Each structure stands twice: as C-alpha cells, then as structure tokens.
C-alpha cells in the first residue's frame, strides 16, 4: 500500500483518485490549479470528487502544501507543457529531492527535460516512472523495459486517437477534414483547440519519450513532425483505390524521431480504426510485437499510472 499525492484533478487525476483504493492505495493529498485537500490518513475520494464537480476545486488549502504533505509517490497529472515543461518539472524535482517516487502522466518533463530528470533521479532515493505518457492504457514502456532497450531497434505506431479518429472517419464517409473535425469535437474526441493532436505534436512527444528510453537524447525540437490538417478527402480516396489508407504514424529509433501521415495497407496491422492506438516494437531476437488498445481516457490512463505505482512500491 502506498500513500499518493496527486497533482492535477483533470480526467486523469480524478480517475486516479477514484481508483486508488481499488488498487490498495491511499490518497493523502490532491491539488488542482486553485486549491488542495490534504489528510495524512487519506482524503475521502468521494468528497473530493464531489467538491471538484460542484465548486470547481478540490479544496481550500494552497496547492503548494501538497508537496510537503506525507506521501510515498507523487502522481503528476498537470497539463503537458513544452519547453521548460513547467510546472510539472518543478513538481517532479521537488519530490525527487525529498527522496520520493514520481509517476508522471504529464509528458512534458520526460519529453523536454529527460536528461535533467534522470540526473535528479540518480541523486534521489526515489525513482521516476511514466508508463501513462505513451499510449495510455497500452503497456508500451514496461514492455520496452522487459525486452531491454538494447534489444529494441525501433518503435512505431499510431499514438494519437484524435488524429486516427479523424482519418478513419474521412476515409469511411468520404468527408473533408473540417467536417470530421467538427464531428469529433461534438463527440468530445477532439478538443476545442485540436492543434496538439492534429499537428502531430502529441504523437511526437510520445515518440521522443520512447527514443529517450531507447537511449537517445531528444526533445520535441529534434523531431521531424508533420500533421494531418492539410489532408483532403481526395487524398484518402486515391489511397483507397490502391487498397491503402492514411495513418498518422510516429517512429522512434535511437537516431531519429519522425511523425507524419503515411500510406499503409487498408487492412494492415497499423491501420487501427477510430480512437484506437497501436504500438509496434521491432526487436533483435523476438521479431515484431504489436500491442493495441486505448491510448487515452481517464480510467485507461489512470490504470497505467497505478500500474507504475505498483511497480514502485511492490
């Protein structure tokens, strides 16, 4: 059993709070951007979630108090930011300096400041894990860890459900990008500002994280990225006439990170449909592995976070 401090009460943070007890853990502190709730004996998850729903915040205490609360694992689920990756990076550093473990759902610190974070980890009694940052519920990083990064030559896949949903619908319905994007926004599959997803940034961050785990030293600036915005229905039609379709494919090796729309066989492994993701791992001794599943969502991502908590505290 571990005591969790949860930073961020969005889709992911709330699901972690909701599911923690089912995994045998206690949430001793939780914060959103405006307030915090802290209780060394464990906060009442129901109360906290109700309060968030009714008042828009989890509590009255200053969010900063969470970092000095009693906990074993810090769960970092604040928004992913680029460049300095703040406030996530500072949160993770503080936990490591205090010799606590950190589990990240936030991609920023591991994509943009991986080297620094690993350095802080070597000086700490705590460790950093970040399964949730790549492929949501898909156990991509722990599979890489089990295989050994040295036995993996490349990782590629469909790593953004929003972009994949749009491409799937465009091909199936013969509709243009704008139509399908509006539909995706209505369904809650795409955000009001979808740029992170459709420009390929989100998929690129995940690939950068994978490339870092493989032993490279990358940040988003090193990735070669193009998105799906400019793709007209006619391109998908031409692809379909030839038995192909288009997918936003990200690819990471120790040498490079590339994300862009690619032609794939219509019924091929990489042509997953809807919001589904797939991670394909090329190994030296075990051939090719394919893992597909849900790449996003509160409970899905929380299950990856809680799996990391389990690995750290077993």
């Amino acid at each position, binding site marked *: 059993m571990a005591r969790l401090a949860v930073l961020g009460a969005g889709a992911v943070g709330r699901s972690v709070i909701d599911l923690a007890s089912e995994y045998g853990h206690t949430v001793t502190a939780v914060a959103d951007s405006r307030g915090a709730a802290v209780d060394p004996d464990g906060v009442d998850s129901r109360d906290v979630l109700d309060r968030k729903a009714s008042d828009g915040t989890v509590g009255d205490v200053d969010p900063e108090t969470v970092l000095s609360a009693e906990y074993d694992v810090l769960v970092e689920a604040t928004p992913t930011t680029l460049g300095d990756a703040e406030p996530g990076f500072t949160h993770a550093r503080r936990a490591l300096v205090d010799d606590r473990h950190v589990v990240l759902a936030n991609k920023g610190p591991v994509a943009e400041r991986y080297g620094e974070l690993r350095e802080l980890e070597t000086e700490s009694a705590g460790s950093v894990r970040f399964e949730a940052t790549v492929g949501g519920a898909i156990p991509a990083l722990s599979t890489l860890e089990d295989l050994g990064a040295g036995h993996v030559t490349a990782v*590629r896949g469909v790593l953004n459900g929003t972009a994949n949903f749009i491409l799937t619908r465009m091909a199936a319905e013969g509709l243009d990008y704008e139509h399908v994007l509006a539909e995706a926004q209505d369904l809650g599959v795409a955000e009001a500002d979808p740029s992170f997803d459709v420009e390929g940034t989100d998929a690129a961050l995940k690939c950068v994280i994978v490339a870092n785990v493989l032993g490279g030293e990358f940040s988003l600036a090193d990735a070669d990225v193009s998105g799906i915005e*400019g793709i*007209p*229905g006619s*391109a998908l039609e*031409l692809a379909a006439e030839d038995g*192909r379709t288009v997918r936003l494919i990200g690819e990471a090796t120790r040498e490079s990170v590339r994300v862009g729309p*690619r032609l794939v066989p219509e019924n*091929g492994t*990489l042509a997953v449909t809807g919001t589904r993701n797939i991670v394909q791992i090329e190994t030296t001794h075990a051939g090719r592995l394919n893992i597909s599943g849900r790449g996003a969502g509160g409970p899905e991502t929380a299950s990856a976070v809680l799996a990391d908590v389990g690995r750290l505290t077993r």
Partner: protein
Amino acid sequence: MSDVEAGSGRAYTIRLELADEPGELLNALRPIAEAGGNLLSIYHERGNLTPRGRIPVEVDVECAPGRFDGVVEALREAGVNVVQAGEERYGEEVTVVLVGHLIDTDLSDTLKRFEECASASVVDVSLSAPQGTDDVSSARLRLAAEAERVSSALATVREIATEKELLVIEPQLDGGA
C-alpha cells in the same frame, strides 16, 4: 519481377517498338549480344499495338555498366526503334500521394524532377482535383526505383515537395502489412 544482379554486369531495361513483321524480333536481338549484352528476358506485348501500329517490346539486358551505351548504339544502328533505355532496371515500386496546388506548381515539372533527381521512374499517376484545378488537389504516384535506393528517392521527393509547398504522404515501408 525479380531483383537481377547476376554475373558481373548490371541489369537494364530497354523498351523497343518493332514493326509487326516476321523476323523483326530476331533482327532486334542480334545487336544486343554482339555488343556484349546478355539477354535476360523479353516481354513481347503481342496484340497491344502502339498508336502507330507497332508492337511494344521490353527486353532486360545484363551487361557491364560501361557497355550499355554501346548496346543501345548497336540497336539504333541496326534500325531498331529504341523508345527508352539507359535507365537501370527498377526492382521496387512505392506509392506516394502528393497534396497541394499541384497544377499551379506545374505537376509535369514536379514529375520530371523526381525522375531526374530521385533516380526513380514515375510509373503511373492518378490525379484527383474535385474542386477544379485551381484548388488543392491530390495525386497518387507509383514510383519505381532500385530496391536499395528507395529511401533516398523518397528523401528527394520530400525535398522537391517542400520546395513547392506540397504535402507528401509517404508509404510506410516498415511494419505496414
């Protein structure tokens, strides 16, 4: 199509057009051997006449790279109509889709430059311009290149497309199937 790299030579494809008369094929093949070329295969498109009523024939020839020009020369001297030669035999075909103002940016110039710089040949082009030629259109190209030059050919395609502000949807070469 097999990937020919046999013997000491390289494989080349020559396209000929022959008159539909007895003995013409034999007449065309003799100079190849005489000029030091080794005949690998003949593809005789019987029944498929060119607009001028001739028979298209494709022959694959193996010879030392330095001798290939001599082979073509010998054919021409023998009065054979050589439609296309000098390009190496292409082992691999890949499909790319281009998107953008394809017509405004001179599609035929784009294709010509792919062939020149990418050492690839454009086998087939399908254009789709649903909003008319002034708007964004898409084209599917089938490119043929030597197997080991496919990625450099694609890199060149990317370069030319970037210059012309076209979007390239590349084939996923690994893991796609």
